[in-house]
């Protein structure tokens, strides 16, 4: 029998015993939302019972928009206004997108991120993604019958800083409180790890529609430690379709040139590929201009035609194992993620490389969202005694441009995040008073071969002889894998700082403009929403303080405790008023008033972690 809980006299019981936190897989071809219900993670279906939301958004001339399956049916009908696979454009400029000329969109070229001209004007990929995320948010809120506390959103492990930031901006635009961005393969591992209670080293092989990720994880008593990650952000199921189509054309002695025929071939290749997951031989059928092409394809033909692609994935696997300093024999299991791992030749190649049958008992389409939901539940504090801890890494090295266009690496790839690294630089010329810093990401030695993330300047350095200034540049990467950089001239204390964001992503005022433009945000709605958000934040802060006090209240002296109690009482009273700004101020006051308490708690936690160990070590 469950025991009823009675709160201490004078203390209010928790207003929400459980916070609704969801996991969202924002995929290239489709997206899903999952939530932990009754202790089990499950994907939430829409009103029609479908859990998969095609990642397609159509903008209509009358101002309406269609999202998901309703948009997908219009792909051929209204290609310019129907945006599919928008994930490929996140944080990308036009020159970054391979084969952009083959796509039906009217692109707008911008230095940071490209835009798409639609019947509703120019749309940023961030806005398109936000429409998909908002659809999933509403689905979750309708299903759970409550506002969302927050969401964990997955990104490919190989996403760079620009792509991550764009994803986070999209979530903000969709009104989601992002608890964390986590890597898709890591999310998959969580889904598997918790189900199977596994320990040891695991490889996660994630072949999606457009990207390939490989992650090597070590699992020990609830700690998911990512040891190395690697991949190819432009290799996926789409390339297998293309290779199959090319093979058929070569063997049938045919060529095509019209865009319509090319599209028909691609569609036919996709159907043929999917059929070959179940049978050994199938007829490749495509309706081309003038005649129908029919050609028999066996699974071994398909395998031969795509061998080079599968080999490329295994090269990345080899590199990741090398980075992890592990051998194939030390890997205890291989988890398959992504719809493209359904191809039998991929299963076979991976199985034979690792010398063991891959794990594929969870639905490869759903596993990422399920893992994200488990992590979201944990981060929201629902799984109080939960001991799941995720220690993830940064996938690509971060550095600075130095003389001669060379990269000085500051944070090497596969460092556990959060991390901060500092390096000292100096001036090149006598009397130099400013220093231009160019932040890049990538593994190559030349700046030209890496991705440029940001440029900023440190000004006001006192004139000195060349080489006399000591400029310490610090790179900080947070738990979402996002970078900020600061520079400090040690002698004079002159400082400059940049959150590596405005040069490619969206500045906060741009986000604000989009929010204004958005269909949910007429002036009155904006105010209502601000008020709701202020109250949710106040609630969150009160709850957090409440549970901190019940756990470690003894750390505070009586007067300190009284001060915190007074701030809490004040916030409780104010949060019933209708002024968002007042509520925010009171929330801030409580946050500020509990900073010292938080520091005391952190210290206690560390001492607890070390307790009983020092004796053995001395």
């Amino acid at each position, binding site marked *: 029998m469950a025991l009823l809980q009675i709160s201490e006299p004078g203390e209010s019981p928790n207003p929400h015993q459980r916070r609704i936190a969801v996991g969202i897989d924002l995929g290239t071809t489709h997206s899903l939302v999952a939530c932990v219900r009754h202790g089990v993670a499950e994907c939430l279906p829409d009103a029609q019972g479908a859990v998969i939301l095609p990642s397609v958004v159509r903008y209509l001339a009358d101002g309406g928009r269609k999202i998901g399956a309703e948009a997908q049916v219009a792909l051929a009908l209204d290609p310019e206004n129907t945006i599919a696979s928008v994930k490929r454009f996140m944080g990308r400029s036009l020159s970054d997108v391979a084969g952009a000329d083959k796509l039906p969109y009217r692109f707008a070229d911008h230095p940071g991120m490209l835009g798409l001209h639609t019947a509703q004007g120019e749309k940023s990929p961030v806005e398109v993604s936000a429409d998909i995320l908002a659809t999933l948010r509403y689905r979750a809120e309708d299903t759970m019958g409550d506002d969302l506390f927050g969401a964990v959103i997955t990104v490919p492990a190989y996403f760079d800083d620009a792509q991550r930031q764009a994803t986070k901006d999209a979530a903000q635009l969709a009104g989601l409180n992002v608890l964390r961005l986590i890597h898709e393969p890591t999310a998959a591992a969580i889904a598997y790890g918790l189900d199977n209670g596994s320990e040891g080293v695991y490889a996660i092989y994630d072949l999606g529609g457009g990207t390939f990720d490989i992650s090597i994880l070590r699992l020990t008593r609830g700690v998911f430690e990512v040891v190395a990650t690697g991949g190819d952000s432009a290799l996926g199921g789409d390339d297998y379709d293309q290779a199959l189509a090319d093979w058929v054309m070569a063997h049938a002695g045919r060529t095509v040139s019209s865009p319509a025929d090319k599209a028909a071939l691609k569609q036919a290749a996709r159907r043929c590929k999917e059929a070959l997951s179940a049978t050994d031989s199938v007829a490749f059928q495509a309706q081309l201009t003038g005649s129908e092409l029919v050609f028999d394809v066996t699974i071994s033909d398909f395998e031969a035609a795509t061998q080079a692609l599968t080999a490329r994935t295994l090269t990345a696997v080899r590199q990741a194992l090398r980075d992890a300093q592990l051998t194939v024999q030390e890997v205890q299991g291989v988890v398959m993620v992504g719809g493209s791992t359904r191809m039998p030749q991929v299963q076979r190649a991976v199985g034979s490389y690792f010398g063991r049958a891959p794990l594929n008992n969870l639905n490869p389409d759903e596993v990422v969202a399920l893992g994200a939901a488990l992590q979201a539940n944990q981060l929201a*504090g629902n799984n109080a005694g939960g001991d799941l801890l995720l220690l993830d890494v940064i996938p690509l090295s971060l550095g600075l441009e130095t003389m001669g266009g060379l990269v000085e690496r500051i944070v090497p790839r596969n460092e556990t995040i959060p991390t901060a690294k500092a390096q000292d630089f100096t001036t090149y010329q006598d009397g130099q008073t400013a220093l231009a810093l160019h932040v890049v990401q990538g593994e190559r030695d030349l700046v030209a071969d890496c991705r440029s993330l940001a440029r900023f300047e440190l000004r006001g350095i006192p004139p000195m002889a060349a080489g006399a200034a000591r400029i310490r540049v610090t790179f900080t990467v947070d*738990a979402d894998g996002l970078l900020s950089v600061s520079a400090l001239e040690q002698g004079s204390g002159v400082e400059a700082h940049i959150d590596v964001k405005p040069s490619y992503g969206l500045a906060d005022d741009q986000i604000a403009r989009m929010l204004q433009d958005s269909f949910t945000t007429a002036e009155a709605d904006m105010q209502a929403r601000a008020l709701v958000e202020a109250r949710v934040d106040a609630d969150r802060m009160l709850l957090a303080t409440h549970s901190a006090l019940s756990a470690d209240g003894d750390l505070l002296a009586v007067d300190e405790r009284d001060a915190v109690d007074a701030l809490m009482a004040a916030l409780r009273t104010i949060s019933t008023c209708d002024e968002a700004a007042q509520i925010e101020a009171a929330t801030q006051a409580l*946050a500020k008033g509990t900073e010292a308490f938080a520091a005391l708690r952190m210290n206690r936690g*560390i001492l607890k972690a070390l307790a009983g160990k020092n004796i053995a070590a001395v």
Partner: protein
Amino acid sequence: MNLQSSDFELFGLPARFAQERAEIDQRWKDLQRETHPDRFAAQGAAAQRLAMQWSVRINEAYQRLKDPIKRAAYLCELRGAPVNAENNTAMPAAFLMQQMAWREALDDAGSVAELGGLEQQIMASRASALQACATLLDDQGDAQGAVQQVRALMFIQRFNHDLQTRQERLETAQRGQ
């Protein structure tokens, strides 16, 4: 305990060179369990900032403690004998001769098997330099002497990196045939 505590204090380990890697790994995970920002995701921005500072500090200490060369260099510095690798590259003549011989062997090696032989030599040198570090730091209290060994280890590490790169290139070429 504060952010300025030494890596050893932070991890509750004696400040010496000889360490059990498994012990370092375990403490790292125990400490991250208490400080990682994920543990404070529902507790507002101030708690996140504090957790981030601690988590970063613990990762920094972990990177230094788990790598024997960084650990040795850190101990030398704690004991007043900084390695200053970038400013001071003077090495004994015998060591430099050895380096040159290795470089030549690396340039001449035409097969993975030949590189394997060279790799064994490098690993043996590395092991003996690490052993010397342990003796100098833990038994003889000679940080100045250990600095020389740390510099040698840095040379060996760089050479080993070049050797691995070469090996990968040869392996890739062999697979391609």
